[in-house]
């Protein structure tokens, strides 16, 4: 019977020796990269931090870590509470505009966190612009996409039949959720929660604009100590706390990630709204409208705010940004952002592809382990800590690299590496070993097998990964704000600088830069989406 073969043929476990051999040799490149640009700076930072273990008992640092932890916990719970119903609306139903609404939920995720924070600030009532509440709301808004992706994927693959079977056995909607849906989703919810907690714990761009001066989080404090106060020891002590706590969270929740991911099967058919009950139809329609509105309004707010100087609406902030006597050289900042993103994307994709290749094809456990470490270490070390580590590690010969232009794209590559290597590895694993076997039985040499099978099947995923890396770089603010220098200021750096300065026109210009950056990110995504989907048709 045909149904018994469904789902087979996607696992690559068979060993192709030339691939394994290549994997062992290629490992040296990512290992060197992560060693020099992540491990070494992190260790330098850690050593500084340990000098001052006493400072950790310092009341100010302790309360910062405590606040960072609990705001992340509340943000995570809020994100799940909002995200799970959104995932239900978007993955269990088919309705006109579903794809658009789904794409909208991804918008905050592809936008720089700094821009999202600013966008949020424009739509909040003036008394509520900074503090815990706006920070938590913005975190939920940013990370709903994570829940929709991870939990939604699992939900989509859950056959509707289980729900129907439970109903015929007497289970009402609540009981069905508890006994059928929840057990299926639990692992993915834990995985999504862990990831969201990590993002919220290492929050930086959002916190810079929303948390307010009386509520500093770990990352903004590291920045303040290192850049504004010049207290590297306090910065390092916080960085240590950051690395340790994120490491713990990751260790607890990572098994769930793997478990959840291994479940991907054929998607169940979503419910067509036309055939649903009236109550469900009304609920889903209302849900979709609310989701769309919530995701569009802050963006509109951002654009409107860039047109306001003081209390007047004017184009002057925009006009000034293109002028010559101004504190924002928009064209220069755009050029710097794009150039940095290009270099960072190339570095990330080269290193990330190698990491993925080794993970998928190495036969030795040690080799695979090192490759996995190359992917995990940059997750544990947050962007601000990467920046701090660069400052501390690369200032003495033979590695006196202070002020080198390429440090910035390299730091972005470190930040983007895990995302990129994971994306590429997932696609590499999808290539059936038998395709390669077929090619070799037809006379293709190992190199030929790689170029004719792997390389051509990976072209699109690698294209997507390049975009991802460029997006991360365009919006990167954590490492950038520690490495910023005059001369090659990117858009995010410009926003950070302008926000910190008084004056209505400068504030408005920060929003001009934010609108331009948002437009840049969105058009990049739209362009790639068009190119990649256009190929299929």
């Amino acid at each position, binding site marked *: *019977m045909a*149904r018994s073969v469904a789902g087979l043929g996607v696992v690559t476990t068979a060993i192709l020796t030339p691939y394994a051999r290549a994997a062992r040799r290629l490992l040296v490149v990512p290992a060197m990269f992560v060693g020099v640009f992540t491990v070494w700076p992190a260790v330098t930072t850690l050593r500084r931090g340990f000098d001052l273990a006493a400072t950790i008992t310092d009341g100010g640092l302790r309360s910062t870590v405590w606040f960072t932890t609990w705001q992340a916990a509340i943000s995570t719970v809020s994100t799940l509470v909002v995200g799970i119903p959104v995932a239900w609306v978007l993955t269990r139903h088919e309705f006109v505009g579903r794809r658009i609404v789904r794409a909208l939920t991804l918008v905050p995720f592809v936008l720089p966190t700094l821009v999202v924070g600013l966008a949020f600030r424009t739509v909040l009532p003036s008394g509520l612009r900074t503090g815990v509440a706006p920070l938590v709301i913005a975190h939920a808004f940013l990370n709903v996409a994570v829940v929709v992706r991870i939990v939604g994927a699992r939900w989509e693959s859950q*056959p509707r*039949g*289980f729900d*129907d*079977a*439970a*109903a*015929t*056995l*007497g*289970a*009402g909607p609540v*009981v*069905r959720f508890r*006994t*059928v849906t929840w*057990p*299926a989703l639990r692992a993915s919810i834990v995985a999504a929660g862990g990831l969201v907690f990590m993002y919220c714990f290492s929050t930086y761009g959002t916190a810079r604009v929303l948390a307010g001066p009386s509520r500093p989080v770990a990352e903004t404090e590291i920045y303040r100590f290192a850049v504004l106060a010049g207290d590297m020891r306090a910065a390092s002590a916080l960085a240590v706390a950051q690395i340790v706590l994120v490491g713990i969270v990751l260790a607890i929740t990572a098994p769930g990630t793997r478990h959840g991911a291994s479940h991907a099967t054929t998607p169940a058919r979503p419910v*067509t709204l*036309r*055939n649903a*009950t009236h109550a469900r139809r009304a609920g889903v329609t209302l849900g979709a409208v609310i989701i769309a509105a919530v995701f569009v309004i802050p963006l509109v707010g951002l654009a409107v705010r860039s047109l306001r100087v003081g209390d007047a609406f004017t184009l002057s902030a925009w006009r000034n940004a293109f002028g010559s006597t101004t504190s924002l050289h928009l064209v220069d900042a755009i050029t710097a952002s794009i150039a940095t993103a290009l270099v960072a994307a190339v570095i990330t994709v080269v290193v990330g592809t190698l990491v993925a290749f080794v993970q998928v094809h190495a036969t030795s456990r040690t080799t695979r382990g090192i490759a996995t470490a190359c992917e995990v270490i940059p997750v544990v070390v947050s962007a601000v800590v990467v920046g701090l580590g660069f400052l501390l590690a690369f200032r003495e010969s033979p590695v006196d690299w202070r002020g080198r232009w390429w440090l910035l794209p390299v730091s972005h590559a470190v930040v983007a590496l895990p995302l990129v290597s994971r994306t590429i590895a997932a696609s590499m694993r999808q290539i059936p070993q038998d395709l390669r076997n077929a090619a070799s039985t037809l006379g293709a040499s190992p190199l030929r097998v790689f170029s004719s099978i792997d390389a051509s099947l990976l072209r699109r995923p690698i294209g997507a990964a390049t975009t991802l890396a460029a997006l991360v770089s365009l919006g990167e603010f954590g490492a950038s704000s520690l490495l910023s220098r005059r001369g090659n200021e990117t858009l995010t750096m410009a926003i950070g600088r302008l926000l910190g300065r008084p004056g209505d026109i400068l504030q408005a210009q920060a929003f001009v830069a934010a609108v331009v950056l948002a437009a840049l990110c969105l058009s990049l995504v739209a362009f790639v989406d068009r190119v990649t989907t256009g190929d299929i048709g």
Partner: protein
Amino acid sequence: MTTPGLEVDHVNVAFGDSSVLVNVSLRLERGEIVAVLGPSGSGKSTLLRAITGLVEINSGTVRVNGVDMRGVATHRRGVGFVFQNNQLFPHLDVADNVGYGLRIARAPSAQRHARVTELLSLVGLPHHGERDVATLSGGEAARVALARSLATSPPVLLLDEPLAGLDHDLRYALAEDLRRVIRAAGSTTLVVTHDPVEAERIADRVVRLVDLSDELTAELSSDGQ
């Protein structure tokens, strides 16, 4: 005259613009086993789903033991359903799958265990309670699905191609078993299948789906030629 166990009265179901069931009527006496025959895509599954309430009917009536099911949610209908691909819950073992409905009905644990044991022996799988459902063969999974649906002794039992996916010999052997088990349970039973031999072995009475609806009959016979 006694109230029928299951009555389908001029039921219409349409998905958007396409009519799937047109004026379908069918009547089963209490405890009767009826098989409905029809090719795939003829709306057999839809008929069963309409009876359980998993599909909304546009017009017509479904009655279980004389009670109109209009507005009654699926989980309150007392209609058992054996799904085409069994739909055994992957996170529960065999015993917990069979006992699921009893747990929902808050049956005391001792009673539940006794009933699960009884049903597993009835379907020929004694001592299989702790098995992972993923390890069951096709025939075993079909038996567990049947046991699960019968556990709460539903007044009406529906079976959607219960033996599809099994190989030939096993299928007819299982058909006899199925009849014996259903008879023992006493539920009014409607089974849909595309296989006339299977239908004959399971049911007291066999009808063709096309014969249940005047308009459908006319349409299909003119299409068929």
